[in-house]
């Protein structure tokens, strides 16, 4: 903190330059170091309620569980629906209820991880709270950030949420099996994502049928994919 020369006898300008996101970013970096030290590959999964995050996590778990030890953290305001569903696919699952908080942050993940069985853990899937605005600002320390959008949410999900894609590594355009009835072009959603960030990995998938999921996992560089 720097106190400058008073502009009058009584008034002072105090230079702070304090980053309000620094505390979270610092903890996120700590989480990353912790994951790296244990050889854990962590993925932060974002998407609106109903975009298909949980179904996709189930697909990831089913595909990986014979080769890798997988655990999941399910973030949700109030229910255990997500954790209960993921549990049917296998692996350890921890439900985190955030109450009124619209996003997970690095400290929540930090606490959640400490209550998981980390012995030999290879992959940690972190399903964020269902919305595409707030979680964008709060990095968790994961190695990949995946955003899930589905054709059932309409044609504008990507162009209306540009900020969340800035930090994303991959985008899954989901529910392609319903694209015809929804009259939404999945290729258009993919194009929107690439128009914002040409370096994104993109895949057209159906988390329900499993189509495109293997390709998505390869593109994301998930170990064991």
């Amino acid at each position, binding site marked *: 903190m720097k106190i400058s020369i008073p502009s009058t006898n009584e008034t002072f*300008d105090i*230079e*702070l330059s*304090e980053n309000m996101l620094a505390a979270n970013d610092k903890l996120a970096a700590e989480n990353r170091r912790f994951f790296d030290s244990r050889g854990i590959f962590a993925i932060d999964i974002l998407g609106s309620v109903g975009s298909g995050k949980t179904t996709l996590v189930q697909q990831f778990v089913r595909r990986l569980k014979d080769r890798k030890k997988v655990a999941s953290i399910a973030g949700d305001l109030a229910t255990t629906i997500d954790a209960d569903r993921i549990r049917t696919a296998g692996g350890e699952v921890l439900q985190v209820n955030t109450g009124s908080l*619209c996003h997970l942050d690095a400290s929540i993940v930090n606490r959640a991880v400490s209550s998981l069985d980390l012995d030999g853990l290879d992959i940690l899937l972190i399903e964020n709270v269902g919305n595409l605005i707030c979680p964008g600002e709060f990095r968790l320390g994961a190695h990949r950030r995946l955003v899930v959008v589905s054709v059932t949410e309409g044609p504008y999900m990507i162009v209306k949420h540009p900020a969340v894609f*800035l930090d994303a590594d991959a985008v899954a355009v989901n529910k392609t099996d319903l694209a015809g009835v929804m009259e939404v072009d999945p290729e258009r959603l993919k194009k929107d994502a690439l*128009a*914002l960030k040409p*370096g994104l990995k993109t895949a057209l998938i159906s988390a329900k049928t499993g189509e495109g999921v293997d390709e998505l996992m390869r593109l994301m560089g998930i170990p064991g994919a």
Partner: protein
Amino acid sequence: MHEASIAESIVRSVLRAAAEAKAEKVESVTLEFGEWSAFEPAQVEFWLKVGFENTPAAAAALEIRTVPGRIRCRACGAEGACPQNGSGVTGPFVGPVLECPSCGGSDVEIISGREAVVKSIRVVK
């Protein structure tokens, strides 16, 4: 609602600095938000007013500045503003394209534009 949590951090930071300076009241607070941050200034302002109620900063004037977004290319090293999507190309989308303004490469990192910073405060002793 994430504006409420950022406002809470700002209130804490401002009041701590004012107390350390033994200030009687805070006259103004200057904040900087990146143009790509997902914090809506009007919402932050609302929550700050709530947070500053009954504190030495209750009457503080708020100045919120926008920090322009800039990127650095990992391939050619160029730094600068992003090219912008115009309307028409991708439907209603107007905004930055995260690609190098110089070589067109897509391996770029964001060097500014995501800030949420308490820049300075003016206090009266």
